[in-house]
């Protein structure tokens, strides 16, 4: 396993009808072959156990962290509630008093953060794995821009607010993704092409947003900008319910497709050779990814960089080379809830929208990624 095996194995003489093994008795040869087989099998089993253990460990740790941050954020606010009381309320064993504040006011906001963060994280990981490009997350390739443009038009052009804006944003994301897919189609869709078209479409949509903002009234502009930043403010159970319902459908479907995704990452030809229906699987996974981003954006607005950063962070945590879909979802939830906690409580009296905090965290990562990929010459 050392670096020296690289040079030595290059010169290895393979066992076979070579003179070296000629003087070995047949029995000895059979025994050593059996030993080699056993050793190889042990190595394979060990490697699988390492991978599975790491995966389970990462998932449990992230889930525990999420729960901790959730409890802390539920305990903080104008009325401080001890964390233990929060936990008691969550498991349904509270003795009245502050339970109402937790379950009716703070919990919907926190749960919205967890669910939307998980949806962004999962969606980003799907896109990045599917298009084999760390830049290919839905917030970079213009899908959230589609939601934003639609929402801004709804707010400024039609004076809508609240729930209808969410519906319009959801539809905007789907329509944008469809247009991108059709533009990228040339007897199949390649990752690089979709990324470039996505960035171009995103740029066009940004200019649409800018134009609509210039013709807006001050009040509408303020509302639109608030939506564009992404925020968990004033989220109630009316936000949590549809979001939770959508994830209850989408997440299992994504997890079931995980193995296809793993094979697709080895390239179209290899995937096809292994019996994956490439175009159909890719379209299905893209649809799931788009739907996840669309519901999350509809709920909380285009919170910057959560989709973009979660996948790479999750992939570094698990054994290398895995797509890490579920860990990415948990990282997304953790990034979102932690960012909201920071935004709400880091500076007393100032309540930053969650999108501001995630942008502050995410932008340096984007710069680092661009620098790092250029250095290693894997810009695509």
């Amino acid at each position, binding site marked *: 396993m050392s670096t020296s095996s690289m040079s030595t194995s290059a010169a290895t003489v393979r066992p076979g009808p070579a003179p070296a093994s000629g003087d070995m008795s047949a029995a000895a040869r059979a025994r050593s072959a059996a030993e080699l*087989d056993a050793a190889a099998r042990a*190595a394979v089993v060990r490697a699988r156990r390492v991978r599975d253990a790491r995966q389970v460990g990462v998932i449990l740790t992230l889930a525990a962290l999420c729960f901790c941050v959730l409890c802390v954020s539920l305990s903080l606010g104008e009325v401080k509630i001890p964390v233990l009381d929060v936990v008691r309320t969550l498991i349904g064993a509270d003795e009245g008093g502050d339970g109402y504040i937790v379950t009716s006011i703070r919990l919907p906001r926190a749960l919205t953060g967890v669910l939307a963060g998980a949806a962004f994280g999962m969606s980003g990981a799907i896109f990045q794995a599917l298009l084999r490009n760390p830049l290919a997350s839905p917030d970079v390739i213009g899908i959230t821009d589609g939601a934003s443009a639609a929402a801004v038009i709804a707010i400024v052009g039609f004076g809508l607010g609240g729930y209808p804006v969410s519906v319009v944003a959801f539809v905007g994301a789907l329509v944008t993704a469809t247009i991108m897919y059709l533009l990228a189609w040339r007897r199949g869709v390649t990752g690089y092409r979709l990324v470039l078209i996505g960035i171009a479409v995103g740029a066009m949509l940004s200019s649409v947003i800018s134009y609509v903002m210039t013709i807006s009234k001050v009040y509408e502009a303020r509302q639109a900008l608030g939506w564009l930043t992404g925020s968990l403010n004033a989220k109630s159970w009316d936000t949590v319910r549809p979001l939770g319902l959508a994830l209850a459908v989408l997440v299992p479907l994504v997890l079931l497709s995980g193995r296809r995704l793993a094979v697709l*990452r*080895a390239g179209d030809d290899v995937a096809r050779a292994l019996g994956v229906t490439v175009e159909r699987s890719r379209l299905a996974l893209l649809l799931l990814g788009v739907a996840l981003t669309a519901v999350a954006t509809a709920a909380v607005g285009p919170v910057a960089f959560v989709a973009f950063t979660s996948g790479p962070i999750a992939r570094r945590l698990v054994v290398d080379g895995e797509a890490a879909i579920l860990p990415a979802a948990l990282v997304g939830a953790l990034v979102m809830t932690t960012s909201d906690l920071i935004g709400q409580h880091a500076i007393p009296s100032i309540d930053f929208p969650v999108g501001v905090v995630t942008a502050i965290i995410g932008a340096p990562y984007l710069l680092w990624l661009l620098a790092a990929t250029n250095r290693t010459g894997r810009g695509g």
Partner: protein
Amino acid sequence: MTTGGSTTTVAQARLSGQAVTLRYGEREIVKDLSVDIPTGRITVIVGANACGKSTLLRGLARLLAPASGAVYLDGKDIHSLPTKAVAAKLGILPQSPAAPDGIRVVDLVARGRYPHQGWFRQLGPGDDAAVARALVVTDTVELASRSVDELSGGQRQRVWIAMTLAQGTDLLLLDEPTTFLDVSHQVDVLDLLTDLNRQEGKTIVIVLHDLNLACRYADHLIAMRSGAVVAAGDASEIVTEELVTTVFGIRARVVPDPVSGTPMVVPIGRYHADASAEPAVTP
């Protein structure tokens, strides 16, 4: 090598193409081509660059659907079969595949088990055994937990072959498995494939650049030019100086390979040839 006196009967071809036309967009690469892959033997496809040999292989492996004609696997149109069912019978290693960033050797090889997995079934002991066997055969056991990124070209090629072997198919198609390898690794890979053919009876189809290695390792040689088969059969019967001229567009001498006795092609360029090197026939 025992290719010398063998006859190339193609009585039972599990894989065959009938009047196959293959296109990339409007560009027609292979036209109206019929071919039988003899079962249990090593077939090598040779030809000049852009003659359609890789395209033919992709067509035979259902990576590319024919515009007309059909490829038959065990008597059925390969495109009428579920692709996963085909993957349990036929493995193909495409030309210079790209591994996912950072993936470990053992995980890449385990991807070869995909055709044997269901929606819910995880990798089990049977899969472990197949993966371990593939690692042993390709001499990559000691690389198992290394990252594919950090391997040399020869090691990487062996790992990809291991992935294709882990698939556990009787039919094995390989597109230029020796590209980018130095000569010792080329021979290594071809010896490995011969082992698989001799010991496990696998049917193997290889696209190769090196005509001399092709003649040496092929039980059945297919020579292609401009998307058509020019000659097919036993190398020592079909490889003549005329054939080399037809297929590769160069003059050449064909002499017996001092190692294997199979035909060896010695090209004649415009320089460095003395009068005695003139071939028996001129183009």
